């Protein structure tokens, strides 16, 4: 009985019928996700459709799974492939093409999973002559609390936005106070209180807090827009509350205060990724075609300053020619005006996988179809 059941499961798992169904489902998934990009933007779509086991649709307040997501379909395809090959394993050159192509496909699926989990994207903005040793996240933000008492040295505690959103109380040995999140808005507009007379009273009591109104706005997924999250944080010392501050990436300059004989700076900013080396923008060039506003090329000449010091070396980063250095890749992404470059900084340890897997798939397909072709030529049906 149980053996019979197992046999049935096995025959489904190894079947080509399952393969065809999974391919069909993935076509629908990709198509749907493409259409939904108009509303969600490319990042939102990836979270909703591909980096998920199920695609959820909201039915009023309820979120119900309506379709298998990328992890589900990809996972089942992997199981289907692996079990089919294990079950029907036969050594022979006639299947060599299929074998190589499928091995490549398995590698490709695993590689995409890995890059989905491991890849991190940042941006680095550099004005000509400027040097930076960190890049900033495109999407994530952090609350940075800095001890600036010593003018030569900054001591920073960075709290990820997600902790503020969850409302987790934070205590850190470097801070003489606890950080108590009191409220969080994923996207907001910050206005002066005088401009919005009937805004509700703010929970903030310190710093800029009482002067500004935080107006929640809808979360954006658009490629060219950024969410401006805001949070209210209360700082609580051993003898009670220091007050409640409002922090937001829309607020600009850090807020300063004194406590326990030290000077502090409080700011919500894009999450920073520090590197052991720094980059200096020597020159940014930007040409357009004569008589038009079509960009012809743009490029950044940067100097890499390695941690061990020394002169470093100069490299030219331009379209289709990134700089790969210390596990990071710097791409020419955009620019502002004539003197500011925007580099895309990517850390993706599995970047080589697609190259290998695609080469394997292509090779497998070529072998397989050449064998078909030979079959045609001999007048046999494939």
């Amino acid at each position, binding site marked *: 009985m149980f053996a019979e059941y197992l046999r049935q499961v096995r025959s489904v798992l190894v*079947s*080509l*019928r399952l*393969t*065809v169904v999974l*391919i*069909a489902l*993935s*076509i629908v998934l*990709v*198509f749907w*996700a*493409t*259409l939904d*990009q*108009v509303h969600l933007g*490319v990042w939102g*779509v*990836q979270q909703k459709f*591909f980096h998920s086991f199920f695609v959820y649709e909201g039915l009023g307040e309820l979120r119900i799974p309506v379709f298998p997501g990328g992890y589900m379909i990809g996972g089942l395809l992997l199981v289907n492939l692996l079990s089919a090959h294990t079950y029907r394993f036969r050594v022979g050159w006639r299947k060599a093409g299929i074998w190589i192509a499928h091995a490549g496909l398995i590698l490709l699926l695993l590689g*995409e999973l890995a*890059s989905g989990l491991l*890849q991190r*994207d940042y941006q680095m903005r550099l004005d000509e002559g400027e040097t930076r040793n960190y890049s900033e996240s495109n999407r994530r933000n952090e609350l940075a609390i800095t001890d600036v008492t010593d003018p030569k040295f900054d001591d920073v505690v960075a709290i990820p936005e997600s902790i503020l959103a969850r409302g987790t109380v934070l205590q850190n040995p470097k801070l003489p106070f606890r950080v108590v999140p009191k409220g969080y808005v994923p996207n907001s507009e910050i206005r002066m209180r005088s401009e919005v007379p009937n805004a509700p009273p703010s929970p903030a009591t310190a710093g800029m807090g009482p002067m500004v109104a935080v107006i929640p706005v809808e979360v954006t997924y658009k*490629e060219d827009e950024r969410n401006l999250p805001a949070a209210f944080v209360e700082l609580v010392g051993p003898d009670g509350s220091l007050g409640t501050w409002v922090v937001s990436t829309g607020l600009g300059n850090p807020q300063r205060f004194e406590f326990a004989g030290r000077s502090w700076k409080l700011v919500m900013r894009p999450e920073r990724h520090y590197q052991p080396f720094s980059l200096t923008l020597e020159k940014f060039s930007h040409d357009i*075609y*004569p*008589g*038009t506003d*079509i*960009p*012809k*090329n*743009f490029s950044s000449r940067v100097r890499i300053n390695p941690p061990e010091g020394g002169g470093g070396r100069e490299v030219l980063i331009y*379209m*289709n*020619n*990134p700089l790969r250095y210390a596990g990071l*890749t710097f*791409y020419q*992404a955009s620019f502002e005006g004539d003197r500011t470059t925007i580099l*895309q*900084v*990517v850390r*993706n340890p599995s*970047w080589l996988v*697609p*190259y290998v897997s*695609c080469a394997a*798939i*292509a090779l497998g*397909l*070529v072998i397989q*179809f050449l064998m*078909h*072709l030979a079959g*045609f030529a001999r007048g046999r*049906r*494939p």
Partner: protein
Amino acid sequence: MTRRTPLYVLLIAVVCAFSGLLHRPGGPPPAVTAFGRLPVLSEGRMKPLDSVARSTLLVIQGRQRVMTPDDREITPDEWLLDVVFLPEKADTYRVFVVDNTDLLSLIGKNDENLRIHYEKTSDQIAALVGIISSSQRRMSFNEIAPYLSQIEAQEKLADPVLPQSRTRFQAAVVQLYGNLSHYLRLRRALLPEGSKDFLGELLRLRDSLSDGVAAVRAKEAGKPYDEAKAAALIAEGQKFVGMAESTDLLAIPPDDDEADPSAWHSAGHALLETFGKGDVNPSVLAYAGMGYAWRQNQPASFEHIVRLYGTSLERRFEKQVRKTRIETVFNAAEPFYACMMVYLAAFLFAALSWLKWPEPARLSALGLVGLGWVLATAGIATRMWLEGRPPVTNLYSSALFIGWGSVALCLVLEATHRNAIGSAAAGMIGFATLLIAHHLALAGDTLEMMRAVLDSNFWLATHVVVVVTGYASTFLAGILAVIYILRGVFTRTLDKATADALARMVYGIVCFATLFSFVGTALGGIWADQSWGRFWGWDPKENGALIIVLWNALILHARWGGLVRQRGLICLAIFGNIVTSWSWFGTNMLGIGLHSYGFTEAAFWWLAAFIVSQLALIGIANMPLERWRSFRA
């Protein structure tokens, strides 16, 4: 039909195809053609004035032919000459297409005043049944001019709306406004607005220049000066500023001592340098001279000036002038138009071969497909040489290349199978892709410059060419499947052997398509990884290509698993047409992503109609076999 027929058919086709190159009697005088060959810098590249005229006409009125009010047909070059030198005449030519009824009513048009009144009874009847148009859809600048301020006001309202969310009226008003400004920029390219004797003005300026400059200098230094002379000079300067600001045609070559060969100026800009240099730019004078001769209707002196100026440019810009000359010949030959007609004829002959005269008609079709393919090859090669780029650089050239690649595969099929199926498919795909290309050309210069993001000949030559070959072969499999259905259901010509042969072809082409669309997509991923740091970004166009790969993989697995047989395979291949057309055009219509170039509403309806037609074919394919004519007893 006789054994020689295929040869005669081919000969006639060759003569027709090359007739575009012959100088027709009653055509424009050679000086006009020579004017069209003059190089200018426009939209970022050197091109002949002829190309400027043609692409402007395609943009504003959807065709290159211009009819004068007295019903004479003139060439694009003659039209351009009138626009730049005789604007009061050009303003009467009906070259602005307006289709939107709301927009028509905005410019005071209604069904009554748009109706064309024909003199002859035969014409009246023809108009009634729709053979010739019964109402005017093209307007002259003069007809629109009284409403310019209303159009501008409406355009200001519509412009902030995103293109994909505009209503038809908004889209139409933005387009008309764009076309009008395009026209005006051209009209002010060489002469200032309203000038009747520009040459005379320039010559007088040259004579009075030193006095005028001295007067202005004295005025600036606070010394006594000749008021009239200074004022005249300042007025001239203001006129030139106006000219420089109102055009984007860079018609004046760089000065002799200029190192940068791309430093062309507009006429106004070159004239502004007159005051510093102390002399009027000779190229501007040459154009003003041509304008004088054209206005005064002095063909001999017009020809003389054009030749003099042309020769002087040739000495300085030998290579560029050769290119612009070839481009003019290429424009006049219209190889893709000839090619389109040849493919259409090829399809008809192939169909004829199944119904009657199998061998002569089949060979005629094959000869025509071969001719069409040679023409397309020559056309694409010329474009590549002119641009210095791989074959596919934009949506227009992708249509050309899809047609070219499919037809090449069809020629292979025809060579191996000799049953006219390859020729028929070639005729259909070749004709359809060139028709699509023709409509895509209405967006403007098809040899446009590449944006920095896409500027990589290596990747254009590999990723783009391979992935477009994948599109082409997927379409070809679909078209072969369509032939299977049409012949099976509507004719008695689909016997068992033909059906098996067709199914084998479809299968083979699907294999080919899987390989090419996969490799092309993977190369695209590698390009993206090299340029933007991600192998796969779920961009709509990438997803479209991925769906094609997946669809071909689905067909193969369904076939290997025995889930479909011959008819199922055929239906899946037809659905491949839908998948490919969506990936090719549909993804661009979303208006998002890196690849979202070119969006038109008309294209959307055509795409929808195409998808419906393919679904209908799949429906027909699923009729029981006894209702198919080929299988009825």
